[in-house]
């Protein structure tokens, strides 16, 4: 069979949104007309953009594509994200099997469905404390600063054994890593500062262990463990970044979406049994990993009629895939009663989010508690004045001013 490679001119990744909750309109057009299209990267190279659910899902499970960031172009920046450099020990998101498998198997037992359910009372408590503090402060408050960011940050700190008091530092470094227009020197400085911070923490835990994850990994009885300080630092920084940057944005952006869809927040209030459904639908609808997931072809690969050459970077747009009408009828509608469990907001394949059960537990606790405590919750500014995170790898809102007085 001969494969015809279409040769349209490559275009940059679409990033300009029309509506704060929808991916850029170009994705819908591409998905329909050219589901695998030519992509121009800021470093001057060209590659491919996948926008259809089945193609994206297939790509993310395809072992002919590598997660090694060293060989990949970034779709939105002229230099690669160094957190995914597989030469950094323990940096599992940039690794392929079998290296990836070893680390994944060592840390997964900390993030199982059962373990996360055991955390529920503690998460309930943390959420309640923050709601009480909001109530004492009185409206208006910035929901990002008072609720969405501190809750997952405190939870991951307790889980890992990282002092919550140090959050100003590591939240600043993480923001620098994830800001698109951050100068290269500043990104690398933030990366080094975060590395040094976690490394010192690992050294301290070796001397004085506690009950939290980092210490337990160090003192694991698993003979296959034996992680070096470098490896522990790599794993630790990844979990710290992932644990406070992602859920924080889902909590704030999810609340913003619910406030802009009052019929949906009403259903959530009246039907608490729908909370798990609502969480899956918000994950699908908002897909905050807004610039997709990057892979590199190890060999020449034929997919859906196009030939991807060895070494080319491919971007899997999970945001576009989660709006594919072939999978989700009326995909641009937020409908918390629909069945959206097959969304791929957490990715797919061996790298599917390690912390997804933690994220779900935090969301299923936080949204109902927030809307339950403040039934009159609403935006304190017009919706078009909410500052959006178009400029960050992880989408969301920079601030969400809310009030709850009549």
């Amino acid at each position, binding site marked *: 069979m001969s494969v015809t490679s279409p040769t349209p001119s490559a275009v940059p990744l679409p990033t300009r949104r029309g509506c704060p909750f929808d991916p850029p309109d170009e994705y819908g057009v591409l998905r329909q007309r050219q589901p695998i299209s030519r992509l121009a990267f800021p470093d001057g190279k060209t590659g491919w953009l996948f926008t259809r659910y089945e193609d994206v899902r297939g790509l993310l*499970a395809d072992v002919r594509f590598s997660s090694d960031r060293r060989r990949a172009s970034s779709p939105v920046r002229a230099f690669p994200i160094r957190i995914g450099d597989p030469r950094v020990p323990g940096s599992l998101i940039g690794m392929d099997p079998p290296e990836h498998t070893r680390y994944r*198997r060592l840390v*997964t*037992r900390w993030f*199982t469905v*059962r373990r996360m359910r055991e955390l529920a009372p503690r998460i309930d408590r943390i959420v309640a404390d923050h709601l009480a503090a909001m109530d004492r402060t009185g409206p208006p408050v910035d929901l990002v600063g008072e609720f969405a960011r501190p809750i997952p940050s405190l939870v991951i700190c307790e889980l890992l054994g990282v002092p919550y008091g140090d959050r100003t530092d590591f939240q600043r470094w993480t923001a620098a890593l994830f800001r698109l227009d951050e100068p290269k020197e500043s990104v690398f400085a933030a990366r080094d500062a975060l590395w040094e911070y976690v490394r010192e923490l690992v050294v301290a835990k070796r001397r004085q262990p506690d009950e939290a994850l980092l210490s337990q990994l160090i003192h694991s009885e*698993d003979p296959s463990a034996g992680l070096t300080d470098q490896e522990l630092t790599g794993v630790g920084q990844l979990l710290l970044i992932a644990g406070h940057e992602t859920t924080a944005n889902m909590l704030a952006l999810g609340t913003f979406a619910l406030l802009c869809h009052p019929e949906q927040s009403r259903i959530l209030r009246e039907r608490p049994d729908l909370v798990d459904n609502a969480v899956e639908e918000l994950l699908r609808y908002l897909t905050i990993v807004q610039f997709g997931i990057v892979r590199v072809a190890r060999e020449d690969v034929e997919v859906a009629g196009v030939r991807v050459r060895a070494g080319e970077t491919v971007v899997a747009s999970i945001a576009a895939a989660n709006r594919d009408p072939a999978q989700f009828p009326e995909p641009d509608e937020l409908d918390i009663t629909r069945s959206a469990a*097959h969304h791929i907001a957490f990715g797919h394949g061996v790298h599917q*989010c390690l912390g997804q059960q933690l994220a*779900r537990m935090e969301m299923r606790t936080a949204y109902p508690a927030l809307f339950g405590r403040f039934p009159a919750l609403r935006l304190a500014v017009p919706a078009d004045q909410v500052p959006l995170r178009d400029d960050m790898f992880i989408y969301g809102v920079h601030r969400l001013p809310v009030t709850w007085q009549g």
Partner: protein
Amino acid sequence: MRIEIDRSRCRGAGQCALHAPELFDQSEEDGMVVVLDDQPPPELLERARLAERLCPNSVIRVLDDEQSRGGPAG
């Protein structure tokens, strides 16, 4: 109905334990899949199929009675 798994493919995402807790759990040692009931009653077929579909690493296979008896796909 019979459930077969390829544990070597599992990476412990937990989709099965989340969506079909009657059938699947995760090991305390490494977080990887544990099958609680590999010959579940027919009323759990839908849940088993959901777990099969959502598994990010194609670990789970749900065989209907014909396949279980060694049919072409079994």
